[in-house]
C-alpha cells in the first residue's frame, strides 16, 4: 500500500510544486515507485517543472469523468521508469473534482505504488479540500517569512481538523547569512509558532530557477545545494531516523581571516 502524502502551504509561491517534483525524483532515485498528482486544476505546473508538458494526453479531470482509465493518464518520467505523473487539467477549475472523487482516484493507485505525492494548490478552498482528502501525511512548505508562517499555521489547523496527524515542515529558501545576521526568521522562530516536526531545511538556491525552467529538477544535479537538501528530505520521508542536513553559509575564505583578526 502506498503512503499518501500531500504537499501544501496555504500561501502561493513558496515552493510546493518544486518540493513535490524534487521529492518525487529523489524517492524514485532511491528505488521507490512513485506517482505525483498535480491537484492544482486550472493552473497546472508540475508537468512543466518535471519537463513532461509535451507528453500529456489525458489529465486528472478526464480520469474522474471516465473519459479514460487512470493508467492511460499516467505519464512516465523521462529520468526514472518507476516515477509517474498524473497531470491536472488546464481548462477546468477546482470545482470539476470532488473530495470523494479524489479519494477514489488515489485509492485506485494505492496498491501499485510505494508513494503517492499530491501537489496541493495555494489557498484553503475546494482545491485544498480535494488535495488533502485522500492524504495520510502532510508536508507543509513554508519560507522564513512572517506571511508564509502565518498561512502555514492556518493550514496546520485545517489539516489537524481533517484528522491528518503526521504533519511535517519543509522550510524552504533559507539564507544562512541573513538568519545569522538576525535579518530573517530562523528555523526555531518558525517552529516556535508552528510547533510541528521538521522534515528538512532547503537553502535558497538560484540554480533552482534555471533547472526548473529547463524542466530539470535540482535533486538530479550533483552540485546543487537545494538538490542535496531535497535528497535528504526524501531520505527522511523513507526513514525518519536519517539525520537532518544542516545548512551552513558559504563563508568566503577572506571573511574567515577577517573574523580571526577581529577576535584578537
Amino acid at each position, binding site marked *: 500500500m502506498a503512503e499518501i502524502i500531500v504537499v501544501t502551504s496555504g500561501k502561493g509561491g513558496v515552493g510546493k510544486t518544486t518540493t513535490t517534483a524534487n521529492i518525487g525524483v529523489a524517492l524514485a532515485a532511491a528505488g521507490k515507485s512513485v506517482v505525483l498528482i498535480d491537484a492544482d486544476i486550472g493552473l497546472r505546473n508540475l508537468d512543466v517543472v518535471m519537463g513532461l508538458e509535451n507528453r500529456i494526453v489525458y489529465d486528472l479531470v478526464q480520469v474522474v469523468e471516465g473519459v479514460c482509465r487512470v493508467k492511460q493518464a499516467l505519464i512516465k518520467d523521462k529520468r526514472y521508469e518507476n516515477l509517474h505523473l498524473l497531470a491536472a487539467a488546464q481548462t477546468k477549475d477546482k470545482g470539476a473534482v470532488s473530495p470523494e472523487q479524489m479519494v477514489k482516484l488515489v485509492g485506485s493507485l494505492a496498491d501499485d505504488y510505494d508513494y503517492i505525492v499530491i501537489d496541493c494548490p495555494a489557498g484553503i478552498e475546494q482545491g485544498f479540500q480535494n488535495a488533502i482528502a485522500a492524504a495520510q501525511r502532510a508536508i507543509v512548505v513554508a519560507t522564513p517569512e512572517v506571511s508564509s508562517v*502565518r*498561512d502555514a*499555521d*492556518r493550514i*496546520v*489547523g*485545517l489539516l*489537524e481538523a481533517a484528522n491528518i496527524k503526521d504533519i511535517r515542515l519543509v522550510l524552504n529558501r533559507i539564507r544562512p547569512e541573513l538568519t545569522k545576521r538576525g535579518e530573517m526568521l530562523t528555523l526555531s522562530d518558525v517552529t*516556535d*509558532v508552528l*510547533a510541528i516536526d521538521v522534515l528538512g531545511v532547503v537553502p535558497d538556491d538560484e540554480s533552482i530557477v534555471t533547472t526548473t525552467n529547463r524542466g530539470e529538477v535540482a535533486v538530479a544535479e550533483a552540485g546543487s545545494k537545494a538538490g542535496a537538501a531535497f535528497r535528504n528530505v526524501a531520505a527522511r520521508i523513507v526513514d525518519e531516523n536519517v539525520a537532518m542536513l544542516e545548512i551552513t553559509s558559504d563563508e568566503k575564505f577572506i571573511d574567515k581571516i577577517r573574523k580571526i583578526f577581529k577576535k584578537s
Partner: protein
Amino acid sequence: MTKDNAVIFKGGKTGIIVILDEGADFSHISQVLRQKIRDAGNFFAGASTSITFKGKVLSEDEIAELIEVFDDEAGINITYVDDQTGELQIEQKSVKSAKKSSSDEVLYRKSNLRGGQIITHNGSVVILGDVNAGAEIYATGSVMIFGAMRGFAHAGTEGNEKAIVCAFSFQPTHLKIASAEVHFYEGVPDVIKENPSYAFLQDGAIYVDTIST
C-alpha cells in the same frame, strides 16, 4: 421571522428600545419576545447593552420576566433597564442576581489554537498550548494560556470586569476585557513578552503586568 407586532425592537442611542403593543396580553408579549430573539440568532450574543421598554405598562415582576427571556435566549448582558411605560427604573443587577452559575464551567483545550480558529465559551477558557496570530477566544470568564499568546482574546464578554487574560509568553495583538479594549500596535515590551504576564481591568482601562510574587 415572526411577523407579530406585539414586540418591536429599535436601536436607541444607549441600547435597545423594546416597544410593546399596549393591547396585547403579557403572556403573548413574553412568547413573541422569546421567538424574536431566537430568530435574531447570534445577533445579540455576548452584547452588553441597556434596554428601554416602551408602550405597555408593566409590573416589576413582568419586567423581570422579560429580562429573563433576554438572558435565556440571547446570553445578552443587560446593564440597565429603563422602563418608560411607567416611572419604574430598575438596576438590572437587583432584578436577577440569583441567575448565573451553571454557565461558569471551564473549557480546557490541550492543543495549539491556530490562526483562523475561534473558541467561544460561557465561562473561563484554559489553553494548554499556544494561541497563534489570527486565533480568537471569546469567554464570559477569564482566558488562561499555558503557552504563548499571539492572538486575540476577549475575556468577560458579558461584562465581567474581574476577568483576566494571562499567558506564559504574553504577546497578543489586541485584547478586550468586558467593554475595554487595547491594541498593541508596537508589540508588548520585552519584559512582558518574556515573563508570564496577565492583563486585567482597573478603572475602565486594561493594564498588563508580569505575574511575580
